[in-house]
């Protein structure tokens, strides 16, 4: 899923300067799972904004809502009226949701409360880490299902690098070296030969923005 985290409060409050009716809208998908933009976070955000305005004696009206997803405009019907009523919409969704709102409501000010990060997993409660960079040309069949582009800071396709030692990463010593993990897994699977194959330079033509996928067989 997409992992994001809340922007610094100061930055958010600065963005909201001058707006009197603020719709705070969260999302029940990825950002709820990574505790950045769900029901709880929307309520906390509302309270923070009201405390800030009260301290500075500036009036504000906040509306708090959460919808299933912000990456599909069909879910916006539930907040349509609130959007029209507000001066600014503070979205607690990932960047995709913010874009979707902006495209759907071109006459409204749409602001991002989050910094969207990466595609990843929950390692444990409160800890999320990157697992896929969306390169568009998956090589996980060659690396026992572990992605070197997402987990090696040098993105080497024929690893490990010179600095890998004791199974740890040279750049982030608290992390395991993903090439060490790949080596261990391939060894266990009796497929160490895969590690001996040279992976050629990556074809990035499907890996860079702006990307689009079209399925003619599905289009109406």
């Amino acid at each position: 899923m997409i992992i994001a985290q809340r922007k610094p409060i100061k930055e958010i409050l600065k963005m909201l300067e001058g707006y009197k009716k603020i719709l705070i809208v969260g999302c029940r998908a990825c950002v709820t799972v990574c505790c950045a933009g769900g029901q709880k976070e929307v309520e906390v955000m509302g309270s923070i904004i009201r405390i800030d305005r009260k301290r500075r004696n500036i009036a504000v009206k906040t509306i708090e809502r959460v919808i299933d997803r912000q990456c599909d405009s069909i879910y916006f019907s539930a907040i349509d009226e609130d959007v029209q009523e507000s001066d600014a919409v503070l979205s607690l969704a990932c960047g995709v949701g913010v874009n979707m709102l902006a495209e759907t409501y071109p006459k409204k000010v749409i602001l991002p409360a989050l910094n969207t990060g990466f595609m990843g997993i929950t390692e444990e409660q409160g800890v999320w880490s990157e697992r896929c960079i969306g390169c568009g040309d998956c090589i996980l069949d060659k690396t026992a299902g572990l992605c070197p582009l997402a987990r090696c800071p040098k993105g080497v396709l024929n690893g490990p690098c010179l600095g890998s030692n004791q199974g740890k990463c040279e750049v982030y010593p608290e992390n395991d070296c993903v090439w060490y993990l790949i080596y261990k897994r391939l060894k266990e699977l009796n497929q160490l030969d895969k590690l001996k194959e040279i992976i050629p330079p990556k074809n990035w033509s499907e890996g860079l923005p702006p990307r689009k996928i079209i399925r003619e067989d599905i289009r109406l």
Partner: protein
Amino acid sequence: MKINGSLKAALSKGHFVVTTEFYPPKEANKNEVEKRALVLKNVVDAVLVRDNPLAEVHMSPLATTTILLNKGLKPIMHIGIRDKNRLAIQSDILGASALGVKAFFCLEDCHQRVGDHPGAKAVFDLDCVQLISIMKKIEHSFVGTRINPFAHPLELHLINLSKKINAGVDFIQTMPVFDLERFEEFISLIKEENLYLLAGVSPIKSWQALQSMPKMNVPDSIVRRLKNSPENKQAEEGIKICVEIINALKEIKGVSGIHIFAPDWEESIPVLVHRANLK
């Protein structure tokens, strides 16, 4: 002095070569390069010109190499993988080749976060295995890379080395050697005959300097020798230790030369070469 492929020629004739790490200046300083070149010219067989080492901005290796060539030195040009994509890298290889450089080098560079521009966007479009293949496309090119003989698990690094060999690598340099016993274990695992191995050596300036060096597998006996020397005698002890290691390496079958790491202490290089009877 012939420049084209003469490092290759020296190695193929069985000459015990001496190469050294060369960090270009951090400012646009042609004079400094020329001054250093004059000292190193009569002391080492070739100079490895590094590309933005330690992820810090330095004069470009192509410019530095050109200055060195004009002073009659034999440069090995390092091309980093962190700062350039495959087009820029090939452009540099062609440029260097046109100027007469045949010896090239690659290693997996320091990540930008440790350097002077931690917020920079890194490239890493090619890795070393892929880059070696590209460098070998230049006719008569002589290509090297680096390995850490003390890394664990060694099997993983040797598999990686075998890929570099398949890609055509001609010589390898090792990270500095202090533990000769472990180094000999490593040598016994390298059976490839067409691969020249240059053992890394590094003179330690002081016990203080040792503390700030990256973990380099230095045996306790050496640590003690430095620690127990009075502060003003530690540099001398560091040189002594290095010379002893060089002399031992000369006797190990499979070692074709040494690569001196002394970027902060270039003055020590002529001393080491002289004391170890290398020229």
